[in-house]
């Protein structure tokens, strides 16, 4: 499984990538949507984990851009909303089926990754 992690909090995204790698998941991380788009031009990913709120290009807009380049790529969104329930109505509106609320439980994240692929 090859995963692209995108979040503007470097400390968060780099540590999450390391922990996923320890569990046998190849995780590549970036802190900007632009860098994520660049990487998707030259590398294939099975799945992307995207923060919803990021500078300039947020997670939902980034999903569209990544999907243009790699139509088979799957997506999980991370949000700073208070609870998954709070985020449910917004995510349903925007067509996001898989999402997790920060702080992330790594085992729950891996479960969702396995379900989606």
């Amino acid at each position, binding site marked *: 499984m090859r995963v692209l992690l995108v979040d503007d909090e470097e*400390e*968060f995204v780099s540590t999450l990538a390391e922990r996923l790698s320890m569990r046998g998941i190849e995780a590549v991380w970036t802190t900007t949507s632009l860098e994520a788009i660049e990487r998707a031009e030259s590398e294939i990913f099975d799945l992307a984990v995207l923060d919803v709120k990021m500078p300039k290009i947020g997670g939902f807009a980034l999903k569209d851009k990544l999907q243009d380049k790699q139509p088979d790529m799957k997506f999980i969104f991370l949000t700073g909303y208070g609870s998954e329930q709070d985020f449910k109505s917004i995510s349903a509106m925007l067509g996001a089926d898989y999402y997790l609320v920060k702080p992330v439980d790594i085992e729950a994240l891996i479960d969702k990754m396995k379900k989606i692929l």
Partner: protein
Amino acid sequence: MNEDEDRRQRDNSIHFFGKVTASISHEMKNVMAIINENAGLMEDLAIMAEKGRPLEVKRVKTLAGKIRVQVQRGDGIVRNMNRFAHSIDMPVDLVDLCELLELMVILAQRAAAMKGITLEAKAASDKIMITTRPFILENLIWFCLRSIMDSDPSPRTIIVVPESVLKKGAQIRFSGFSGHFLSKDNTFFKQAKEQFLESLEGDLIIDSVAREIVIVLPGNISARK
């Protein structure tokens, strides 16, 4: 103030309070997410050590240090949230305008960063003390910052400067946006006057040559009543 205006101002205040606290809570969630990952990584390393892999003490120390940095960051966020929450305590109060302005710039920082905008609060050489309605003034500053941030073309840097006006009071100068915003967005000025400036007994000056908006505030709001 009639009943409709009173209700509108209350709704507006609740909306403003909600927006600010939502932004703060998102930032706190990020802090907790980083602490969670670093603690999780320490746990992962401990589990691996139990299985026989040597534990790198230096690495554990580094992770503990990262957690401490985030705790300090979180403490700063909560401290600012507390300052903001207490600004409702007194409807009219003597405030340090520079401190109030600095707080609002900090609170708007995340919203600005999302749009790739830098906010800069210039410091005044001396304290500027005015008696005003702190919460309504904060709401007005937030309203100005958000309106400028949402303007097209989007500014790169918004500069906010507090100034003392001899014997009159104080003013807050906003600059760094395009002239287009000043000439087109009449609703901004109408809203600012109706929703905030009447209560603050203040005024809004548009300097289209310098491309600046200036909020003018009395030194003592109650003294003018």
